[in-house]
């Protein structure tokens, strides 16, 4: 990318456009009727309707968690949100290329071309637009390998027994306020199933796009990796720039059986609101994986660079003996963004191992908090955790906090925690500039030096994207 391109792009959030299409939306508001209507719309089997209704009943009794997270925001009016919005289908689609041309153009502008010639090499993409999945690329390659990547709505009909067996088992319905809400009203999301002994030949990916101004996005993702299987999955997200706040409350559940490995990466670039903090996505997400099998492994990598508020703690339950959990995170906040993010590593099995590497970058008047729990159970003999939390401050008005919680219930475990705080400043940039390095490239070098342990965990194509994204975001703040 050239300097002039960077300067061009930095002027605004380049994904902030709206696609003009006809939609079919439910009226705003949430009631048992809404929940039933969503289920009916999707023609769901009774077990799923029951699941939703139970969740709705639970949610009604719960209170929004306003007390412990390091976040400030006005109360959310849950009756002022539309819970279902989908592009109107003109006919049955035989392939993704039959989509409304406006939508195809949208994804092209987002850098996710869907047609055969231009689409990303070696990445199968499921695209979710507002409340529904529009389809998945590379179906043939996946089918040959026996890998399932489809929308969760399709999975309900194609793999009901898997859904019934696993849905809500990692993140129980009543786990928290937002997971209960999601369980009641989730509209779509991705379903991945990797059979025994299969290594997915390509990267799997879901691209989430919020388009409608009034709707919330409540997606649900479920990934099951059978014995000795491997999958790398990536999600990306953007939304138009509206002046109202929009709610995104997703639930992601991962299950890894014996010796299975799941690598889950996120590049989150939701609209973050304008400089004054007006608008932007409220990103309240529950992500959790269960290393159920012996020597199973779950690895979370996230680059969180957008959203007005991020509340997110991708976690691992290390149940199988010798299982491994990893969390690599970069959270960048600027403007008036707030992030309270981190992880939970719950060690239950023997000789379980977890690694946490968290990099927080705060600029302008933003607030960036790392919150993490390392819990080692009485039976987790030989468990080990290593945690590293680094914060970088850009200028003086922002804040960074670190809240590590450690609970150890046996005497044969090792827990290590390291933390540091540094500052990106004019002297560093001037130093690089005097060596002939442009200001933009200087920011890029400083930030990527700071984050490199996390960036290197991302699949290659997305690592480059993530680096650009971080540089662009900070260019505004340092500039």
């Amino acid at each position, binding site marked *: 990318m050239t300097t002039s391109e960077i300067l061009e792009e930095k002027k605004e959030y380049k994904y902030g456009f709206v696609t003009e299409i006809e939609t079919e939306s439910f009226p705003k508001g949430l009631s048992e009727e809404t929940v039933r209507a969503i289920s009916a719309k999707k023609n769901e089997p009774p077990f799923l309707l029951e699941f939703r209704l139970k969740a709705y009943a639970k949610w009604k009794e719960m209170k929004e968690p306003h007390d412990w997270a390091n976040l400030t925001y006005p109360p959310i009016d849950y009756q002022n949100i539309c819970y279902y919005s989908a592009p109107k289908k003109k006919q049955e689609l035989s392939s993704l290329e039959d989509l409304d041309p406006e939508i195809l153009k949208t994804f092209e502008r987002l850098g996710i071309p869907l047609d055969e010639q231009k689409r990303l090499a070696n990445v199968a993409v499921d695209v979710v637009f507002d409340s529904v999945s529009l389809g998945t690329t590379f179906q043939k390659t996946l089918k040959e390998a026996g890998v399932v990547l489809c929308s969760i709505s399709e999975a309900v009909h194609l793999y009901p027994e898997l859904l019934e067996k696993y849905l809500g088992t990692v993140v129980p319905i009543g786990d928290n306020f937002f997971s209960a809400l999601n369980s009641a009203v989730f509209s779509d999301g991705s379903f991945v199933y990797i059979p025994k002994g299969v290594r997915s030949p390509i990267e799997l990916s879901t691209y989430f796009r919020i388009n409608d101004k009034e709707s919330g996005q409540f997606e649900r993702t479920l990934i099951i990796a059978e014995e000795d299987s491997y999958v790398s999955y990536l999600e990306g997200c953007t939304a138009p720039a509206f002046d109202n706040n929009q709610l995104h409350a997703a639930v992601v559940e991962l299950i890894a059986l014996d010796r299975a490995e799941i690598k889950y990466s996120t590049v989150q670039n939701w609209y973050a609101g304008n400089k004054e903090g007006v608008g932007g996505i409220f990103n309240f997400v529950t992500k959790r994986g269960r290393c159920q099998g012996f020597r199973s492994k779950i690895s979370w990598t996230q680059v969180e660079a957008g959203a007005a508020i991020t509340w997110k703690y991708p976690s691992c339950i290390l149940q199988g003996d010798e299982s491994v959990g990893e969390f690599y995170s970069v959270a960048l906040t600027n403007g008036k963004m707030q992030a309270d993010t981190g992880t939970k590593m719950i060690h239950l099995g023997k000789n379980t191992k977890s690694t946490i590497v968290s990099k927080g970058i705060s600029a302008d008047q933003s607030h960036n908090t790392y919150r993490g729990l390392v819990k080692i159970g009485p039976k987790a003999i030989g468990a080990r955790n290593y945690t590293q939390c680094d914060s970088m401050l850009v200028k003086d008005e922002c804040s960074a906090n670190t809240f590590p919680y450690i609970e150890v219930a046996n005497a044969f475990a090792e827990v290590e925690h390291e933390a*540091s705080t540094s500052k990106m400043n004019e*002297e560093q940039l001037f130093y690089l500039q*005097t*060596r*002939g390095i442009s200001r933009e490239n200087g920011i890029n070098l400083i930030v*990527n*030096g700071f984050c490199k342990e996390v960036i290197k965990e991302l699949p290659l194509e997305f690592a480059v994207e993530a680096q650009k994204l971080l540089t662009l975001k900070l260019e505004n703040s340092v500039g």
Partner: protein
Amino acid sequence: MTMLEIKNLYVKGILKNFSLTVRAGEIHAIMGPNGAGKSTLAKVIAGDPSYEVESGEILFNGENILELAPEDRARLGIFMGFQYPVEIPGLNNELFLHAAYGKGTPEEFSKLLDETLEFMEMKPSFKERNVNEGFSGGEKKKNEILQMAILKPALAILDETDSGLDIDAMKVVANGVNKLLHAKNALILITHYQRLLDYIKPHFIHVVIDGTIVLSGGAQLALELEERGYDWLLTPT
């Protein structure tokens, strides 16, 4: 051939009517007491945006560079060795040097860096470490000279490169600088003490007091300053 020409330069609150001419092949030493404006001079030539140039000109090979960004001045061949080199945590020194060098594949650059380290008699560990992170004072200054060796500037301005160095480290740094000098480049040494000038022989010495040059002379002037200090120059009688 005139390389650098500073004409009647005023920098807000610091430099006053400062003029200096440097030709290819010359070594100039700028000396003077603390707070005289020596480091400011170096930073202003390099383009530090935190100083305000009120009037005057800085010509480099005949071109006024005052409007240029620091990186553009660097690309013209101006190099400044920092008095306090900046730490950049996590940024690999080799990656940084390659970005500064701006040419060749990583493999080609790696080879060049190996050769340069050997030529400069520096430890291979400079490759793997992060930019000045956790470096001792001496290592930071050596890293500056390494950068100079890679970038091969036409004009190098070394700001207090000798400060904080023990005698052995100073010899390494001075030897390194001497190896890099030839008839087509020029050097401005900013220093407090005459000590460094035993190892790098200047052609000219300028004494800066209160933001302007009050006295210029040949190499022997350093010895006189060492003996008499700056006091006799401070208040004109």
